[in-house]
């Protein structure tokens, strides 16, 4: 086996040194009756070219390189080359969690920079080293709000990513966390009147997403004011991090739960991504996950360490703020490099291009369907209602080698034939125009059939 650095003679010499007759002696503690006396039924040992070929075939059968209008919590942005150059360095790639600070300063300082940039972008005062993804960050932000407020009920907007909502429900089911939903209005934003009724003195927090699942930017200051008036915390989830380049940060929130995938992390069929929790300084001791802090060594030299570990499972065990141990460090490093490459001006310009492409597509597609949720700004996604079923439209688009928007029927049946379309800086005008042409044909085809105009129920 090519990964094993021992010759048969080495093994013999080591067994002799130990005083064992054969390797089986060392497995004697395992009761005989349970030992596996056959080969595992697995693919035989393969060479490098065979493995490459097997995965190349898989790659070819996985929509390789098709232009796509899918977003919905996973975004295709250009990834600067230097990201992979840097994360491929063995010293980052093959290091463990930086518990031994003296020989982990590289990882520790980069996390400290990551925490700083997340604070700058979100308007929060502290950020952690990472969570698994945006969905678990959101769930753990809600349980954190329960600890901070001493209250139990969580109110969550239906315009939060449906899978984030499912994860929060899973996390909360045995935490004595009653969960209430609040709907969205004509403009796609949280319905304020309904929220006013629902939000009570028993609420730990209000969870919203901005831009929300429909791409609509929520009125965070107004939501914060209403939450505060009831003594509840405001948790703002961000699934599309690039929005922070041009959209005002949710500085009025108490906790921000973010997905950093847009910052240079490949789509990778859904993972690995990187979640982050950011909050106010006064809540830091209720935060889950690792934190890096600055300190000095005995000669007064600046250095970095993992800190406030008394929140964590290896110290507090069942009283810890979370069971999280392994997080998404290398993915956070990708995001860190991405933020460093684009920086203060680049992120703004990048976000502007997303905005422009989306505005163009929304206007263009709107001629062949109804762009829903007018009256509130969107970032790089929008909902288009069509006469024809979006699955049918998507099939037609796929014939032209384009992946269409995300049909919303599964999660929002009340929106009828609606789909969520996403444009990023990588979306070309040519592909938008090509979709427009297919939508135009669909519209004509739809009109020939006596189908009732889909009703919008909210």
């Amino acid at each position: 086996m090519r990964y094993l650095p021992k010759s048969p003679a080495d093994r013999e010499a080591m067994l002799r040194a130990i005083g064992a007759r054969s390797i089986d002696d060392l497995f004697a503690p395992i009761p005989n009756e349970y030992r596996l006396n056959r080969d595992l039924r697995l693919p035989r040992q393969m060479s490098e070219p065979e493995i490459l070929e097997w995965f190349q075939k898989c790659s070819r059968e996985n929509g390789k390189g098709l232009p796509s209008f899918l977003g919905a919590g996973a975004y295709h942005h250009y990834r600067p080359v230097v990201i992979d150059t840097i994360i491929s360095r063995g010293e980052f790639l093959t290091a463990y969690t930086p518990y031994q600070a003296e020989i982990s300063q590289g990882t520790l300082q980069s996390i400290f920079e990551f925490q700083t940039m997340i604070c700058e972008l979100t308007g929060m005062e502290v950020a952690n080293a990472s969570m698994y993804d945006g969905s678990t960050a959101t769930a753990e932000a809600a349980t954190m709000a329960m600890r901070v407020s001493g209250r139990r009920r969580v109110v969550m907007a239906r315009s939060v990513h449906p899978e984030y909502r499912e994860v929060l429900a899973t996390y909360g089911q045995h935490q004595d966390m009653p969960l209430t939903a609040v709907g969205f209005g004509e403009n796609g934003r949280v319905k304020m009147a309904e929220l006013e009724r629902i939000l009570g003195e028993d609420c730990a927090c209000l969870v919203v997403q901005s831009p929300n699942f429909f791409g609509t930017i929520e009125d965070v200051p107004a939501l914060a004011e209403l939450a505060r008036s009831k003594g509840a915390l405001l948790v703002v989830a961000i699934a599309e991090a690039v929005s922070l380049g041009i959209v005002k940060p949710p500085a009025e929130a108490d906790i921000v739960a973010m997905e950093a995938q847009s910052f240079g992390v490949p789509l990778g069929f859904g993972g690995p991504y990187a979640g982050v929790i950011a909050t106010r300084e006064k809540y830091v001791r209720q935060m889950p996950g690792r934190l890096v802090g600055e300190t000095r060594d005995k000669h007064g030299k600046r250095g970095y360490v993992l800190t406030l570990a008394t929140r964590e499972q290896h110290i507090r065990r069942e009283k810890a703020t979370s069971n999280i141990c392994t997080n998404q460090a290398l993915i956070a490093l990708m995001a860190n490099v991405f933020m460093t490459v684009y920086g203060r001006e680049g992120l703004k310009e990048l976000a502007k291009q997303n905005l422009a492409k989306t505005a163009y597509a929304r206007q263009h597609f709107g001629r062949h369907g109804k762009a829903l949720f007018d009256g509130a700004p969107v970032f790089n996604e929008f909902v288009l209602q069509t006469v024809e079923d979006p699955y049918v439209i998507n099939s037609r688009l796929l014939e032209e080698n384009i992946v269409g928007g995300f049909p919303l029927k599964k999660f929002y049946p009340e929106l009828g034939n609606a789909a969520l379309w996403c444009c990023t800086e990588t979306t070309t005008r040519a592909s938008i125009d090509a979709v427009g042409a297919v939508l135009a044909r669909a519209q004509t085809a739809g009109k020939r059939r006596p189908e009732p105009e889909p009703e919008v129920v909210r």
Partner: protein
Amino acid sequence: MSQVKKATRHVNQNEGLIFEKSSPGKAAWRLPPLDVPEVDTADLLGEAERADLGHMPEVSEIEIIRHFTRLSTWNYAIDLGMYPLGSCTMKYNPRINEAVSRFEGLANGHPYQPERISLGALRILKTLTDCLLEITGMQAITLQPAAGAHGELTGILLVRAFLQKQGNPRKKILIPDSAHGTNPATAAMAGYAVENLKSNSAGMVDVASLAAQMNEDVAALMLTNPNTLGVFEQEIHKIADILHGKGGLLYMDGANMNALVGKVRPGDFGVDVMHLNLHKTFSTPHGGGGPGSGPVACKNFLEPFLPVPVIVTKADGTLGFDYNRPQSIGRVRAFYGNFGMHVRALAYIMANGPDGLRQTTEDAVLNANYIRKGLEGVYDLPYKTPTMHEVVFSDRVQAKKGVRTGDLAKRLIDYGFHPYTVSFPLIVPGAMMIEPTESESKEELDLFVDAMKSIAEECEKAPDVVLEAPHSTRVSRLDEVAAARKPVLRWKP
């Protein structure tokens, strides 16, 4: 320092924080020209428009490469040498894993793209699923959990859902005193109380205490096997029987699965549900703390409760996701888990095959026993029970000179090694938990044993050298107390 054979001091570059290099007008990016009309952002966003991006850095590309390259040289890594952290399984991370995970169709696949253009990803998930079921001897699996602790939560939620369906979710989880901290933290997140289970003098579960503590309030026992002492729980069948006899379930923490692959299968010794750590046993890189992946495998009676979606073979023979699972515990994560880690783990399994995996396990156990033999008599071995893939010594002898496990660990750094796991498991005062993995050659192990012996000698002759260690790193011991007392968690201008 004359006896240090593995490492030599070498100049490394100083480097400040990236913010300290920033100045307006520098840039490392360029966007293609916009091919659609420009927009008036104020007009589109109104009140929601952002004014500026504060102190985000402005630097050039060469500065970025140098910044991170310099930082990287301050890290220790498996690529540099032995990384004997106990229960962490710091094995070689094969580079073909990285290559295949970056193939365009896999790296750029969108989780919501239609199933008919996702056949490659689905085949990878299905093949990995089949391999892991064969390796564990279990019957059903989810790949959704993102790490070991996340897998634990998923597994205990499965237990709870099953018991709930029987009519009573029960109240508590039994956890041995040698367990990793994630176990009790997980039990609490699943709404259970934690009851400690004492180990016996051999470092194993005390079967008599288990029998006494087991009752109808106990939902499950969370057991690591081999346990954190590197000891195989020989009475595992009795343990399983005691639990099952009172309607409880046996959960296995698979952190130490590297001692078992190809030799014995948890499904064959009474385990009902377990998680695997693909970032330990199956070679996906630790990346400075993650990402991991924590698949959960279980017996058929827990299958209906697995998180949505599960991968299925449809009537027409094609693969797809099944979301219609009314008894599911729900989702534990968006999408399908850390797919990129699934790709890497499968590449590792293919590179090994059944013979390679068995040889890997044998070498891992051989290496741990070789270290045990080399250091027995030099360091105190609190439990003489046979060692599997890791061995736990204590600082009892050296503590008499005032040198503790943490000091010994820091001194090991000067000898060119990453320390072992310090002060864990908690049942061993002054624990030194050493897991070499299969990735170390006899030469590297000999250097390690020499280094440990040399440090033991220093404890006798010049304990201050050890107490002040490390001496060769760019920073000396850092003030952790000050860091926690007045936390500085971000840079400020």
